[in-house]
């Protein structure tokens, strides 16, 4: 048995490597020729063949894979087929938008989750929170986004319907652009988090050490804060980690619906245009984020529950 952290890191690397193969294979399996997408509707077969040649698309697949992987590892994933520019440049242009969106989601996710969870577990707001959580869960993002935009942008005109502004350029405006997509992203995942938290809160409240705290004369508020809540956060953190990992994927939909130009849109476009190097790189990025989020989750978990690292099970 290897020590804990190196073992985790190794398995993360293994996952990434396997993913790179899957990603590569998946795109090649997708019918449709990148060269045809570039050549456009009125191109002749010869034009397409010339482009294929130029893009080295007729090289053997293993060599294409190694070429790309080698580039990725040395920080140069190549040139985008559709934009004919270095992928790193394109990423640099779009990453800000997605990071802002993801941050908005990440910030809002635990807020929605915590509020829902605490409300669900409380006696006073339980019923209302239950209704809210069920609704949030039942409505897919693509529906809630349309409703949110209709309400806040078209009818009330208090928030922009879509688009973006760099946070660094104008923080106050940027936040307004981020509010609706952030909420739309955070709602369903937040509801899941909330329910999970509520269940955990109820379970932890039943745990014996809470009785010890009561017997010490600890007031209920302090018990909730110091004993019950930390004890309930484990699964919350895990789910939150998964949630972060999914944000980049979720950005695909959110960016489409809110007319943002980030990595999600880039990913959708590049897959649709069979921009292989671009799509592969973006997909790997998404997977890496998910894997990293999971690792991060485990770091937090060991903090929350010191037993885990030593392999002690409860």
């Amino acid at each position, binding site marked *: *048995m290897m020590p804990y952290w190196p073992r985790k890191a190794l398995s993360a690397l293994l996952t990434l490597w396997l993913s790179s193969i899957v990603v590569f294979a998946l795109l090649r399996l997708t019918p449709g020729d990148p060269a045809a997408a570039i050549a456009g509707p009125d191109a002749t077969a010869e034009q397409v063949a010339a482009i294929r040649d130029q893009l080295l698309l007729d090289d053997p697949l293993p060599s294409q894979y190694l070429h790309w992987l080698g580039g990725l590892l040395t920080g140069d994933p190549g040139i985008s087929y559709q934009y004919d520019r270095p992928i790193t440049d394109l990423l640099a242009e779009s990453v800000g938008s997605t990071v802002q969106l993801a941050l908005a989601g990440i910030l809002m996710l635990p807020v929605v989750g915590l509020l829902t969870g605490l409300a669900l577990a409380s006696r006073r707001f339980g019923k209302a929170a239950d209704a809210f959580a069920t609704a949030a869960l039942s409505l897919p993002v693509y529906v809630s986004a349309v409703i949110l935009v209709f309400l806040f942008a078209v009818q009330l005109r208090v928030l922009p319907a879509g688009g973006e502004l760099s946070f660094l350029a104008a923080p106050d405006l940027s936040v307004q652009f981020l509010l609706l997509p952030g909420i739309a992203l955070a709602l369903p995942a937040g509801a899941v988090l909330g329910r999970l938290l509520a269940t955990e809160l109820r379970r932890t409240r039943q*745990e*014996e*050490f809470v*009785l*010890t*705290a*009561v*017997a*010490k*004369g*600890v*007031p209920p508020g*302090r018990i909730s804060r*110091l*004993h019950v809540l*930390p*004890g309930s956060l484990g699964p919350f953190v895990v789910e939150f980690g998964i949630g972060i990992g999914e944000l980049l994927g979720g950005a695909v939909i959110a960016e489409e619906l809110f007319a943002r130009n980030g990595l999600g849109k880039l990913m959708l476009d590049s897959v649709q245009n069979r921009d292989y190097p671009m799509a592969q790189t973006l997909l790997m990025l998404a997977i890496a984020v998910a894997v990293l989020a999971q690792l991060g989750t485990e770091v937090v978990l060991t903090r*929350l*529950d*010191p*037993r885990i690292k*030593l392999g*002690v099970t*409860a």
Partner: protein
Amino acid sequence: MILQVEDLTVSVREHAAVDGVSLSVRQGEILGVVGESGSGKSLTALSIMGMLPTGVRATGGAIRFDGRDLLGLDEPALRQVRGKDIGMVFQDPLAYLNPRMTVGAQLAEAMTVHGTGAKAAKTRAAELLDLVGITGARGRLGDHPHEFSGGQRQRVLIAMAMANEPRLLIADEPTTALDVTVQAGILSLLRRLRDDTGTAVVIITHDMGIVEQVCDAAAVMYGGQIVEHGATATLLGAPRHPYTHGLLQSVPRLGATRVRRLPVIPGAPPDLADRPPGCPFAPRCAHATDECHTTRPPLTGFACFHPLSPAATVTVRDEQEEPAAREPSPPVLVADAVSVVYGRRRKAVTAVSQVSLEAGPGRTVGIIGESGSGKSTLARALLGLLPLAGGEVSVAGRTWDGASAKDRQAMRRAVQMVFQDPYLSLNPRLPIRRTLAEPFEVHGLCQDDEIPERLDRLMDQVGLPRAFLDRLPYQLSGGQRQRIGVARALAVEPQVIVADEPVSALDVSVQAQILNLLADLRDETGVGIVFIAHDLGLVRHFCDETLVMYQGEVVERGPSQRLFEAPEHPYTKSLVSAAY
């Protein structure tokens, strides 16, 4: 009187789980509250703390502490009492400590919530750990509970309860989860704390031995009521209530003479829902009359219309002769220098090391040792359930290693197992019939249409109504389930049964029933038994030969009688002296 409980009634829905209990504790006194599971001990204790679980309410009586009725206090006022005037210690020290907080923080919290400054609390926390006998106290404040041993955790809990020097300490089964040797340490700690601080202590237990060891006075609870109370010596020496008497008798004690069968209290404790209106013990009482069934006897030291005479002391047991020595037959189950290792490389734990034993029809081999000493591991090794790191186990000459599937089946027929926890060892989803039919089916012991008949016979053998065959496990009591466990082992008519702590999870009065069942089966069928226990009295009572295990090794072995009378190994000595 520091605490006076008067006619306390605690209701669970419409049922009185605690039914008119009165108790009193004097300054500096240690009171033992004894009773079986479900008799209402914990609810009584929790009422004093004002900590009854939701759905359970104190519906009558009063709890006077220092002249105030605690039942009349509101939550904030109660909080002032909790942890400050009354401290409480719970049963399972691991579960009752917050696994995510350092021990120091938990100790300090007990004081800061009652107004002590953070700094002072920290200093005092170290003192407290020192006080309860944890060495290197200061350095351990930053440790988490899982870094302490079981006994140390219980000491931490006690330290926490003592943090504000309460005038009353309530300990609910403080040693049940601990080993005998550790238990002795905890009990003497409690006594020392009482001596040093003059705090009154209420110890809740189901173990008469603990009462005998530490309590000044005791109250016996049964079916939500106090059936007898008094000074320890009188209560134990001359019990007046038939239940107290039965309880004392059904526990084999190390010092008592060996008997073939234990005297038992027939039946099982009453259900909360169908308690008789009269004396709760009446349905199980040999002396009960009509009056007992309808009228509740008043408590005058004891609550019984037909008390035993003070002369009928426990020591005067009706002596039965030592069972006739059975002619030794060749061993069936042989373990030869067995070792078991869990985990690999750096994490490896040698759970069993070089253990040899022989078991065969007509003989009972006892294995004793504290928790983690490798008893269960050995049991599983005997049944071929674990890979061995060394040595071999053979059944009727064949070893588990390298046995063909067919051989294994034959070996399984020869050796069977009874498990510790009857709640876990029965598949909750299968009716008893299906569980019991399994051995017949897998071994093809009889035609399919004969199975029902065989099952009926099994049920008769273990003394259960045949109708139980169609119940699900949850519809049976613990004792009844353990009988099913025995029946399952018997089904294949084995030559040896390995019983891993078969009574540890059972109520005291039910324990004796199962022990007797095993003894009867042994006598009737000649089946050999490997009997694993952590209770010296049981082994001494039950087994011909005893092995003492310590950290995976057998440190001493010999005929039970001699072993306990003249232990040689220091560990055995400490075991015997820790027991009573």
